[in-house]
C-alpha cells in the first residue's frame, strides 16, 4: 500500500461478490439454467476482467476485492461447461451476424449490432485465446500482481444461520480448500452467503485462517455494546474483523429511483430481441422453449414510459463519465467528513453482487473502470484498498459483538424462511444429522466406502445451497429449485442408507459422481466435528473402543456409599470399562483412600473438599463443585473426554460449566428428586435443590432416568420433554450377592429352626414404608405364626419402629439387625423366604433387584421403579403403597404357596440376567452417549441412531 499522501482522507473498498448456483447437466446436450453462467460470463465477468487487465496494462493503480463462490469457481473450471460456453459464444456470434444483416442501413440499430458483435468477439478472444477457457487464471494473475484480493465463500453458498453448526466447518473448509486448489493461494477473506452472520461463525472462520467478512449496515447499528462505526472494521471475536456495507454507495447504485443505473440514457433491460422479434427467428438461439434474453437490446430506459427510444451508446458513455465523477466526488467529501471524526482514515466498503455490473446495469463495468481510473489519479484524496489490506495496516478494529443478520429484505431471514420455503429445513437438518452420524461411524474409511461418504457429503452440501429457498421465495424457477433439492437429497439418502449397512450403492454413487463432480478434495470427516484443518495430522489412532473417554461426576463412590447412587455409578463404570470404554470417575476425597487409583478398570479420582457437609450443606456442595471443576479442567490438559456424565444435582454446577468450557456433551442421570424424597418442596433449602435439579435437567444433552416413573416425575417437576428422557434401569451383578465363604453371619443369628423369614434391608426412613410391614405383622402372625421379620439397616426411624413393634406386641417376632456388612447382607437376603420392600416412594429399588438376583421371592410396594420391575404373579407380588392389609395378605399367600413363590423367584432371576444385567445396560448406555454426542452441535432431530462403527 502506498504511503498516505498528505491530503489523503480515506479509502474506498469495492467488494464484488460473484456467485451462481452449481448448475451442470451432463445428461442433456444443453440445459436452460446453464445459460445463467454463460450470460454472466459474457455480460459481467469477461467485461470486468478485460477492464482490469487493461488497467493493469496501462499501469493504472487499483485494487478490488472479488469474491468467487466455490460453486461458481467449480463451473468456471469445468471442462464440459467451458466447452458449452464456447459453443454458446459461437451461437451468439451467428446471431450477431444475422442482426447486423437485419439492421443494415438502420442508423439507430446498425451501430449497436456491430457493437455487440465486437464485444462478443472480444469475449471469445479473451476467454478462449488469451486464457485458454480458464478465466480463473486471469483472476489469479491479477491477484498475484496485487490488483485483486480473492475471497471465497461457503462451499455451496449455504445460508449458514439456518444450517446446523455441524455444517459450518464443512461448508467453509470445503470452500477454502477449493479456493486454494484453484487459485493457489489462501483466500483473503470469506463472503458469508447473503452476509448472513450468526454468533460463533467467527470461530470457524479463524479456524480456517480467514479474518475478514462483510455484514450489512444494520448489523453494525445493532452491535454490542453500542452502534459500531461503519467506517472501520469491528473485531467480533477470535481476531476476526467484520466490515459493514456503506449505505451511501449502496443507495447510489441500488436505489430504483435515484441510483445511477436508472438513468434514462442507460440501456433498457427488458427490451430484448428474444421477446421483440418473432419467436421462430430467435428460437435457434434460445436454450428453452420460451422467449428469453439474448443480450441483444436496442433501447434505452427513456423515462417512465413504455415507449422506449433507441439506445445511444455514446450518450450512455457520457453519463458513465458524469456518474463516475459524481461518485468519486461523493467519496472524497464522504471520507473527508468522516476523517474529521475518526482517529484513523475511514474505509468505505461497497459490496455489490457482481452480476449487477454488466447484466442488470449494462454500463456497469464501464462505470467501474471510470471510477477506478479517477481514484488512481494522484489528485484523488481517496485511495482504493481492500478489507484485508486495511486490516493488515490498521488492525482488526475495536472489539464488539454482532447478532444474527443478513443483507436480505429487512436485514434478517425472511427471504430464506417463509411459507414458500420453510418446509425444506427439516429435511436439511435430518440429512445433516445423518451425515454427522456416518462421519463419526467411519473415522478412517477407504476405497469405495470413502468415495461414497464423500459423495454423500457433496450431495448434502449441494442441497444446502441458499439459492433453492431464494428461488422458491422469488417464485421464478421454483420447479427447478425444488427438483434440485429433491435430487440431491435422494442421492444422499441412497448413499447413506447403504452405508448404514456397511455397503455402497454403486449405481447411486456412479450417477452422483458423474452428475456432480464438484469439490474434488472434499473430506466427509469435516462433518465429524473433530477433524483438524488441512495440514495438521490426525493425532488419534484408529479407535478400537466403542466410544471415547467417559468422565463421570458423582458425589459418592465406593467405599463412600450413602445411598444407592454410588454403587450404581460404580457398577455402571465397571461394566463400561469391561466393554472397553475408558472411564474416569471424579468424586470427593475419602479419608484413607488414595487420591487416584484404578478399581475394576475404572480410574477413580478423589478430590479434596474443604469443610464438611454437616456445616452449611449448600456451601459444601458449591465447594465440592469447584473442586470437581478444577480437577476435571486439570485432567483435560492431557486428554479430552468424549462426554461428561453427571449424577444427580449435587454435581450440577460443575457439570454445566465443564460442558460449556470443554464443549463436550453432557449426559445426566437423575437418580431421585428432592420433591420425591420429601413429598414436596417445603423450605428454601429444598427450593434451591429443586432449582439446581431443573437447571441440570434442562442443560443435559442426554437425560437418563432409572424408571418410567422417574421419567414422568422429571417431566412433571422440571418441564423436561418426556421424549428426550432415556429410561435405563439400574443393574445388578449376581456375583455381588454371593457371600464370601466363611464371612458374615446368617439367619441363624436371628431365627429359630422352622421360622419363615421375612427380610428387609435398607435405610429406615418413612418413604421406605418399613413401618407398614411392622403394622402388618399381627395379621401375618395370625395366619403364619412362624413368620419372623428381620430388619437390616439403620436410620432415623429405628427407635420408632422398635416402639411400634412393642406396641403391637410383635417384638418377639421382629429382629433389628442394624447395619450389616455386605457378606452378612448377602447371606441374609439369599436365605430369606421372602424379601419385602413396602416402599411409598422408590425411584428405582435396587434392593429388589438384589433380592431377585439372590433367587429370593419379593413383595414390593407398587410405586415408582418397583412397580415397573415387578409383574404380580410372574416375578413377584406388588401391593398398593400404604395398604397394610394387602401387604399382609401378599405375605401370607406367598408363605402358603412355596412352589408358586419359587417359580416367581426363577422368573425374577431370568429378568435379572436378561434385562438388569450391567452388560446389557452398559450397551444401552453407550448408545445413549452416542446419541448425545450426535445431538451436541446439531438440532432438530433427537433420535438419530448412531451408525455402527465400521472398518471401511
Amino acid at each position, binding site marked *: 500500500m502506498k504511503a498516505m499522501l498528505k491530503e489523503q482522507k480515506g479509502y474506498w473498498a469495492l467488494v464484488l461478490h460473484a456467485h451462481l448456483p452449481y448448475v451442470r447437466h451432463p445428461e442433456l446436450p444443453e440445459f436452460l439454467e446453464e445459460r445463467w453462467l454463460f450470460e454472466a460470463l459474457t455480460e459481467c465477468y469477461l467485461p470486468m476482467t478485460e477492464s482490469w487487465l487493461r488497467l493493469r496494462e496501462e499501469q493504472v493503480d487499483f485494487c478490488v476485492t472479488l469474491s468467487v463462490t466455490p460453486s461458481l469457481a467449480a463451473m468456471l473450471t469445468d471442462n464440459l461447461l467451458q466447452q458449452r460456453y464456447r459453443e454458446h459464444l459461437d451461437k451468439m456470434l451467428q446471431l450477431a451476424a444475422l442482426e447486423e444483416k437485419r439492421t443494415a442501413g438502420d442508423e439507430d440499430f446498425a451501430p449497436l449490432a456491430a457493437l455487440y458483435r465486437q464485444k462478443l468477439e472480444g469475449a471469445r478472444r479473451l476467454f478462449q485465446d488469451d486464457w485458454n477457457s480458464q478465466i480463473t487464471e486471469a483472476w489469479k494473475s491479477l491477484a498475484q500482481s496485487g490488483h485483486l484480493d480473492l475471497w471465497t465463500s461457503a462451499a455451496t453458498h449455504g445460508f449458514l444461520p439456518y444450517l446446523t453448526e455441524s455444517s459450518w466447518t464443512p461448508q467453509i473448509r470445503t470452500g477454502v480448500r477449493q479456493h486454494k486448489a484453484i487459485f493457489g493461494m489462501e483466500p483473503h477473506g470469506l463472503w458469508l452467503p447473503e452476509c448472513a452472520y450468526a454468533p460463533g461463525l467467527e470461530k470457524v472462520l479463524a479456524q480456517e485462517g480467514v479474518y475478514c467478512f462483510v455484514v450489512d449496515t444494520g448489523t453494525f447499528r445493532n452491535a454490542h455494546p453500542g452502534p459500531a462505526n461503519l467506517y472501520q472494521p469491528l473485531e467480533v471475536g477470535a481476531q476476526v474483523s467484520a466490515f459493514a456495507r456503506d449505505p451511501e454507495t449502496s443507495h447510489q447504485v441500488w436505489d430504483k429511483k435515484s441510483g445511477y443505473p436508472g438513468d434514462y440514457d442507460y440501456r433498457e433491460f427488458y427490451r430484448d430481441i428474444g421477446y421483440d422479434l418473432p419467436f421462430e427467428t430467435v428460437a435457434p438461439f434460445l436454450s428453452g422453449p420460451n422467449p428469453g434474453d439474448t443480450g441483444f437490446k436496442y433501447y434505452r430506459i427513456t423515462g417512465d414510459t413504455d415507449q422506449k427510444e433507441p439506445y445511444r451508446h455514446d450518450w450512455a458513455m457520457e453519463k458513465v463519465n458524469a456518474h463516475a465523477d459524481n461518485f468519486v466526488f461523493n467519496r472524497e467529501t464522504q471520507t473527508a467528513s468522516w476523517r474529521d471524526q475518526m482517529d484513523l482514515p475511514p474505509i468505505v466498503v461497497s459490496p455489490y453482487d457482481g452480476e449487477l455490473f454488466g447484466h442488470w446495469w449494462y454500463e456497469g463495468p464501464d462505470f467501474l473502470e471510470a471510477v477506478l481510473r479517477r481514484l488512481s489519479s494522484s489528485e484523488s484524496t481517496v485511495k482504493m484498498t481492500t478489507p484485508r489490506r486495511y486490516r493488515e495496516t490498521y488492525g482488526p478494529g475495536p472489539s464488539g459483538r454482532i447478532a444474527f443478520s443478513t443483507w436480505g429484505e429487512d436485514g434478517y431471514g425472511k427471504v430464506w*424462511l417463509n411459507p414458500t420455503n420453510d418446509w425444506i429445513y427439516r429435511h436439511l437438518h435430518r440429512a445433516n444429522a445423518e451425515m454427522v452420524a456416518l462421519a463419526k461411524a467411519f473415522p478412517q474409511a477407504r476405497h469405495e466406502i470413502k468415495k461414497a461418504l464423500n459423495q454423500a457429503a457433496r450431495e448434502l452440501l449441494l442441497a444446502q445451497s441458499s439459492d433453492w429457498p431464494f428461488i422458491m421465495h422469488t417464485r421464478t424457477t421454483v420447479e427447478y429449485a425444488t427438483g434440485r433439492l429433491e435430487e440431491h437429497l435422494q442421492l444422499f439418502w441412497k448413499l447413506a442408507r447403504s452405508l448404514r449397512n456397511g455397503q455402497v450403492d454403486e449405481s447411486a454413487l456412479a450417477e452422483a459422481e458423474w452428475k456432480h463432480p464438484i469439490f474434488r478434495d472434499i473430506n466427509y470427516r469435516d462433518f465429524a466435528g473433530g477433524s483438524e484443518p488441512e495440514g495438521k495430522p490426525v493425532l488419534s489412532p484408529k479407535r478400537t473402543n466403542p466410544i471415547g473417554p467417559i468422565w463421570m461426576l458423582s458425589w459418592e463412590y465406593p467405599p463412600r456409599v450413602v445411598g444407592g447412587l454410588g454403587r450404581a455409578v460404580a457398577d455402571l463404570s465397571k461394566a463400561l470399562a469391561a466393554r472397553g470404554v475408558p472411564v474416569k470417575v471424579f468424586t470427593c476425597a475419602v479419608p484413607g483412600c488414595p487420591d487416584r487409583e484404578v478399581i475394576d478398570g475404572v480410574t477413580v479420582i478423589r478430590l479434596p473438599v474443604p469443610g464438611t457437609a454437616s456445616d452449611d450443606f449448600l456451601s459444601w456442595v458449591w465447594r465440592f463443585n469447584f473442586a470437581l471443576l478444577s480437577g476435571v479442567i486439570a485432567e483435560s490438559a492431557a486428554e479430552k473426554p468424549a462426554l461428561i456424565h453427571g449424577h444427580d444435582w449435587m454435581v450440577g454446577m460443575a457439570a454445566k460449566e465443564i460442558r460449556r468450557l470443554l464443549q463436550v456433551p453432557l449426559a445426566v442421570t437423575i437418580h431421585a428428586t428432592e420433591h420425591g424424597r420429601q413429598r414436596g418442596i417445603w423450605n428454601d433449602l429444598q427450593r434451591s435443590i429443586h432449582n439446581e435439579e431443573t437447571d441440570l435437567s434442562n442443560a443435559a444433552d442426554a437425560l437418563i432416568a432409572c424408571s418410567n416413573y422417574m421419567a414422568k416425575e422429571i417431566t412433571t417437576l422440571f*418441564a423436561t420433554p418426556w421424549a428426550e428422557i432415556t429410561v435405563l434401569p439400574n443393574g445388578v451383578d449376581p456375583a455381588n450377592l454371593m457371600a464370601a465363604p466363611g464371612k458374615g453371619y446368617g439367619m441363624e443369628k436371628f431365627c429359630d429352626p422352622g421360622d419363615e423369614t421375612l427380610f428387609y434391608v435398607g435405610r429406615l426412613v418413612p418413604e421406605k414404608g418399613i413401618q407398614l410391614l411392622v403394622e402388618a405383622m399381627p395379621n401375618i402372625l395370625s395366619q403364619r405364626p412362624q413368620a419372623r421379620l428381620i430388619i437390616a439397616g439403620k436410620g432415623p426411624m429405628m427407635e420408632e419402629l422398635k416402639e411400634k413393634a412393642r406396641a403391637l406386641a410383635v417384638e418377639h417376632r421382629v429382629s433389628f439387625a442394624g447395619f450389616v456388612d455386605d457378606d452378612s447382607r448377602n447371606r441374609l437376603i439369599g436365605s430369606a423366604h421372602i424379601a419385602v420392600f413396602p416402599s411409598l416412594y422408590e425411584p428405582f429399588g435396587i434392593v429388589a433387584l438384589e433380592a431377585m438376583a439372590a433367587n429370593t421371592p419379593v413383595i414390593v410396594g407398587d410405586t415408582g421403579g418397583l412397580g415397573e420391575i415387578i409383574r404380580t404373579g410372574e416375578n413377584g407380588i406388588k401391593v398398593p403403597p400404604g395398604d397394610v392389609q394387602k401387604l399382609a395378605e401378599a405375605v401370607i399367600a406367598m408363605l402358603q404357596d412355596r412352589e408358586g413363590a419359587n417359580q416367581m423367584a426363577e422368573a425374577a432371576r431370568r429378568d435379572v440376567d436378561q434385562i438388569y444385567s450391567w452388560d446389557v445396560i452398559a450397551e444401552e448406555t453407550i448408545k445413549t452417549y452416542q446419541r448425545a454426542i450426535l445431538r451436541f452441535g446439531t438440532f432438530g432431530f433427537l433420535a438419530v441412531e448412531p451408525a455402527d462403527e465400521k472398518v471401511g
Partner: protein
Amino acid sequence: MTISFPQGYGEDGIGLLVQDPYHIFIYWELTEKTRQNALHNWFLPFDTPCLLRLQQEEKQGKGTCWNSIYQVELPPSANRWYVSGLRPGEVYRAQIGLHNGQGEFIAILGSKGVLTPPVQPVGPWNTGRPVAVCGGAEPIELEDLPPAESISSTCFYEKSAGGSSR
C-alpha cells in the same frame, strides 16, 4: 415432474429458527408411537390434542427459569408454526406437549433455546453532510438516507415478470 419429500422421518424432533427479532419458526415431528405412549403414561384419552408452548428465558441469580408466553392447541396434522410478537434480544424455546388431567402442561418434545437478535433504537442514517447524487430517474439531494434499506440480494437468475415500468 412429481416431487416427493417424506412427510416425516419416523423420529421425534423439534427445530427452532429465528426469522427476525420478532418472529420465530418452529417445526416438529411427534411420532404416533411417542404420542400414544405419552397418552398411555398420563392416562389421557386418545383424542387429547397436542399443544405448542413457547417460553422465554429469565435469568434468576445463578440459574434460569422459563416463562411461558404463548400456548396454542394444535390442529391434528400441524407440523410447523410461526410465532410473532416476540422481543428482540431474548432467548426462547418451544415445547410440544399435552395437558394432563389437572390442566398442567406435560412437555413431550422440547427445543434448545434460540436468541432473537437485539435491536438498537437508532434514528435514520445521517450522512453528516449534504449529498448530491446525479443520475437515476430522479436526481436528488439528500442529507438523510432512509433508515430501512431494502437491499435484497439480486441474484443473476432473478427476473421479475412483465416489462419495465420505469
